[in-house]
């Protein structure tokens, strides 16, 4: 028996079909039972005799491959759910472009991205894992090299690293994917984490002013309703949701008005999720420009004004209005024949 769990997901798009070809050549040996787990619908279709769909840890449907079409499978993957998790979405985008990307790319994982993020807009980014969204966010933040042109608030800008990205009125701030290893100093206090990016704001001749720092910290703890015993509590002892709020607070203390949120609600409780969505809309209304990736499509559909779908390291399409639905996002992200 052979279990292949996302065995091809790390391969680049040019290796599409490598699994199917292997199976076509008679590998593995006849008589082997193969469980093939993949998010690539086309691949599953080519390989599998039967398809089972899981959602939230439970089996929702099982079919013989020839009896089912892609639409049915996508519907099964989505399920139906209604909740009041999401805030009202009033369009607040202006005509002013905060980030203009032309021919933007990074390494082998992202190419030819043309994208405009506007002031007051929450622009969603969707894509199956490993289709370029991580590279998009990191390259914008100056991690790893980038190609193409970037205009920030109308001016060409080369972003060489996080320190430069975070600096100034034309800055960009990132909520990173990996909260524990990229976002927070777990063994340091909430206070030190909150002000880590803005130490110069309360420093004179190299020395910090504890009073001015405390003021910034207290204001941010109150504004975001961070539940910490005291500002001196270690960040690692907070709940996941409150840890994420500290990262938001750190970002909001900078002058940056372009926010890059990479899966900001992952692994946090529903209540805090709702608060974060509300915060995002409030910030957008204040003129922030927000790029928002989520591994949960429903969040993109309900919070973002538009959704840019990445597939095979390129921009597949941008969905808005009626088209901004989980079904359309999944179609664009998964089905190779749907052209950009």
């Amino acid at each position, binding site marked *: 028996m052979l279990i292949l769990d996302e065995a091809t997901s790390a391969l680049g798009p040019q290796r599409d079909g490598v699994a199917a070809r292997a199976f076509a050549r008679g590998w593995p040996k006849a008589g082997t039972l193969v469980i093939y787990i993949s998010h690539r619908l086309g691949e599953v279709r080519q390989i599998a005799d039967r398809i089972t769909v899981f959602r939230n840890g439970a089996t929702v449907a099982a079919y013989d491959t020839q009896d089912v079409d892609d639409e049915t499978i996508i519907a099964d993957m989505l399920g139906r759910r209604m909740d009041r998790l999401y805030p009202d979405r009033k369009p607040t985008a202006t005509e002013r472009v905060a980030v203009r990307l032309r021919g933007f790319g990074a390494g082998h994982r992202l190419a030819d991205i043309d994208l405009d993020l506007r002031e007051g807009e929450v622009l969603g980014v969707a894509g199956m894992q490993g289709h370029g969204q991580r590279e998009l966010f990191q390259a914008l*933040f100056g*991690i790893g090299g980038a190609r193409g042109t970037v205009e920030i608030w109308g001016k060409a800008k080369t972003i060489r*690293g*996080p*320190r430069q*990205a*975070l*600096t100034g009125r034309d800055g960009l701030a*990132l909520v*990173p994917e990996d909260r*524990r*290893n*990229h*976002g*927070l*100093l*777990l*063994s*340091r206090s909430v206070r*030190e984490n909150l002000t*880590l*990016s803005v*130490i*110069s704001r309360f*420093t004179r001749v*190299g*020395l*910090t002013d504890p009073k001015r720092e405390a003021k910034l910290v207290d204001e941010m703890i109150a504004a975001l309703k961070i539940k910490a015993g005291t500002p*001196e509590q270690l960040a*690692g002892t907070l*709940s*996941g949701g409150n840890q994420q709020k500290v990262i938001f607070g*750190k970002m909001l203390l*900078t002058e940056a008005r372009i926010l890059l949120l990479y899966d900001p609600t*992952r*692994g*946090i409780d529903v209540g805090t999720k709702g608060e974060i969505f509300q915060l995002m809309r409030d910030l957008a209304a204040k003129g922030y420009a927000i790029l928002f990736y989520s*591994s*949960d499509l429903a969040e993109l559909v309900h919070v973002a004004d538009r959704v840019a779908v990445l597939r095979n390291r390129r921009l597949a399409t941008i969905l808005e209005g009626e088209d901004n639905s989980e079904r359309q996002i999944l179609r664009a992200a998964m089905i190779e024949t749907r052209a950009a």
Partner: protein
Amino acid sequence: MNLRRHRAILLAYLGMIVLLLLTSVVAPGFLSPTHLRSTAVLAAFIGIVALGQTFVIIGGGIDLSVPWVLNSAAVLMTLLAGSQDAPLVWIVPLLLAAGALVGMVNGLGVALFGVPPIIMTLAVNVILQGGILVYTGGAPTATAPPAIQFLAVGRVLGFPVVVLIWIVLAIIATILLSKSAFGRYLYAVGTSATVAEFSGVPTFRTTVLAYTLSGFTAALAGMLLTGYTAQAYLGMGDPYLFTSIAAVAIGGASILGGSGHYIGTIAGALVLTILTGLLPALNLSSGALLIVYGVVILVTVSLASEAFTSLSAFLPRLRRRQSPSP
């Protein structure tokens, strides 16, 4: 400031007091002003070398080049000064700058080229050792100039000058660690270089500065120590490799970086010096002293790494609880 965070430092002082009392029992006269004074002087040399070491270790690195930075400064000072006071006006600043420069090279190797700190500083140590051997031909050097001897063994208002120097440096180090932006950055880099980088911390400048400081304090200690021994000799820096690191570890810093304080290192330097004084009183040889040294650092560091293990066992548990699989 919460107590839990400073427990390690308090423990270091507690250990020092216990050790002092113990010593006064087995060796009456140990608590006499004369003996305490000489203990403070010897601790000052360790403390000054360990100052830079504290910054480097808090920043997540380690500086193994201190023995020969110290030794080089000592040898070069006596050679250049030829027992005269006058040339010290340019020799002391020059050698302090040279020590800082060696530290900066260490820092650049680590921060710019990504050489592991152990390798980088060890290599620099050996290179300096070789350089000094070639330069001196192994010959003995001149005696230390009188002014330097005064700094090391003289007194002002009854206090040994070197101890006064140590106190001033300790105040500066404490302000840097507790009050300055540099100190804040240093703890951040030592806790997680990645998080620091993602947060816009100037990680490169911070790392280089910590090593630079270590080179500076090692060179300073080298010149002062020459005043104490009256002569520079090859190998005089060797004990300070171990004692500078041990003082930091005993003082409660994690050898992995991100925690600790120079206030703790002061206790660490005193503990090591008292131990050194205690063993002869017990008729133990210097070999026994080395064994005790080794055991002390092993116990201290393993206690620290035990704390680390329990923390790292704790974190994945949190992770499992908080993030359901996507």
